């Protein structure tokens, strides 16, 4: 299987204000996106791929002249891959509030001329989906063959199926949940407090102080990382191994220090935190975790998910992973149950993978084959 090769992002500016769920509105905004493959003559082979917390519109392929610029779902998307860009026209859109190109808190507010910072309006999954729909209008796509997403991306796919029910034929929602549990929100809140209480955060207006709340971002990422992995995988990867000062050697004795790195897992988390704090925006982290917290399609229906999903018309593929404790199989089964109650067409697979929530981005053969087969089924429905 080959890669897509070099890809280029595009962007589109919208001058028509976007009304937001909060009641506020974005007066004007820009969306950055990428497309791969070719839209067929009757415009029926478009697949929208929604991104999760720290990803973007850059799904697959690489950028010319940039090392290690592979898209975040390159193992799944490309010529001859499970989502085959020789068959489908694949679209990735960077969500509003992100720090990867679309209008976000680091951009200037057209009303005040100042950088948004903490004043960037709170955006929800629904707002993102509304913005995505506008971009699709521009591309001349009235109905998608499928919307695909994992985790927070799966929530967007689900929202598509409810609020734009006639604009998609298939919804593929992987490692996702119908809403966050109290524990999920709790983890998000710890991450947010780490950022907000960083002295360099300046109430969200750190840009004008020329600083970045890196300490907060690091801790937020460390917490996130713990929840993405399973206990088993963490033990297998790091166990209780001590960190050695000299690479490749094993240290046997404790340092009896409370502040130095003692265990390998500490070193790993700090490394992940450092890396993340170099490229991610603190306000974006707050916005995206809040979008996760607020997502709850059943809320308008007194918590009744069956009633909430009655609006769906498309077919569904749901996938969960046995060791995912962040969005556990139980949460996917809630969606399955609500769809069954509504007599919707669906398939559901529970992949027994050791990697926890991260599994949805990894190359499990059963998972890849399943997604490939499902897309082959969608391809079979296309009038070629």
């Amino acid at each position, binding site marked *: 299987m080959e890669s897509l090769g070099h890809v280029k992002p595009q962007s589109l500016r919208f001058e028509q204000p976007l009304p937001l769920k909060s009641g506020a509105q974005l007066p004007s905004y820009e969306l950055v996106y990428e497309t791969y493959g070719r839209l067929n003559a009757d415009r029926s082979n478009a697949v929208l791929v929604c991104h999760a917390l720290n990803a973007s519109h850059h799904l697959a392929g690489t950028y010319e002249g940039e090392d290690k610029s592979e898209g975040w779902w390159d193992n799944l998307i490309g010529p001859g891959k499970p989502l085959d860009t020789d068959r489908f026209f694949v679209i990735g859109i960077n969500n509003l509030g992100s720090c990867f190109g679309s209008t976000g808190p680091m951009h200037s507010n057209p009303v005040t001329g100042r950088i948004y910072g903490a004043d960037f309006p709170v955006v929800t999954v629904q707002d993102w989906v509304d913005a995505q729909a506008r971009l699709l209008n521009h591309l001349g796509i009235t109905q998608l063959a499928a919307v695909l997403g994992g985790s927070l991306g799966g929530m967007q796919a689900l929202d598509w199926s409810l609020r734009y029910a006639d604009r998609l034929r298939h919804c593929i929602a992987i490692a996702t949940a119908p809403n966050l549990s109290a524990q999920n929100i709790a983890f998000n809140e710890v991450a947010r407090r780490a950022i907000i209480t960083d002295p360099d955060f300046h109430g969200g207006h750190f840009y004008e102080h020329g600083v970045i709340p890196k300490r907060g971002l690091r801790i937020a990422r460390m917490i996130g990382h713990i929840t993405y992995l399973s206990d088993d995988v963490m033990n297998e990867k790091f166990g209780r191994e001590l960190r050695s000062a000299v690479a490749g050697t094993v240290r046997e004795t404790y340092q009896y220090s409370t502040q130095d790195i003692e265990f390998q897992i500490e070193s790993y988390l700090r490394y992940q935190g450092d890396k993340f704090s170099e490229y991610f925006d603190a306000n974006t982290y707050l916005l995206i975790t809040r979008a996760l917290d607020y997502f709850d399609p059943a809320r308008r229906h007194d918590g009744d998910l069956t009633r909430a999903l009655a609006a769906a018309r498309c077919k569904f593929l749901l996938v969960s992973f046995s060791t995912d404790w962040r969005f556990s199989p139980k949460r996917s089964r809630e969606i399955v149950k609500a769809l*069954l109650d509504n007599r919707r*067409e669906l398939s*559901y*697979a529970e992949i027994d993978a050791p990697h926890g929530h991260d599994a949805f981005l990894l190359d499990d053969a059963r998972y890849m084959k399943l997604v490939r087969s499902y897309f082959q*089924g969608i391809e079979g429905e296309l009038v070629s």
Partner: protein
Amino acid sequence: MSDRLTMETIASLVPQGARVLDLGCGDGALLAHLQATRGCSGYGIEIADDNVLACVQRGVNVIQLNLDEGLALFEDQSFDVVLQIDTLQHLRNAETVLRETARVGRMGIVAFPNFAHWPNRLSVLGGRMPVTRRLPYQWYDTPNIRVGTHADLEVLAQRNGLQILDSFGLHNGRLQRFLPNLLASTAVLKFSR
């Protein structure tokens, strides 16, 4: 029990256009057949990864689930027919799943290998566990953890207050109504709550 004739005989028990839940649907062949020839709709339930994949490849709706954990995902009487074809003998909670079948379906159809089929009786009389085309496993290496007879199945259904709508045998893909407990390798029960 995957031969064509047996599948068609089982399919003929399912009403046209029925909404079907197939417990332990294997590779989805029966559901695909019901959809293609009898206008049925519904879902298969499977635990095995390769079977889930096979169903998706056939375009059959499949839900990956361990039947021993029950049918909590499904509401009472939400299917016209619930099938349990060659599934019961693999279940730890066979009795619970039988009751669940009747709860979820307006009609349940169970088929499983009849241990009282005469060659099996002969084998046991000779002091050995049977190994036949229908029961091809050695006693120490069999996925069939529930071994029962046609008569046993009827007793179990009655004990659970189920209404037996029809009861017969299948042998070489054909109906066996005369002395099914002796003459059929497969026991079939049609029942409702």
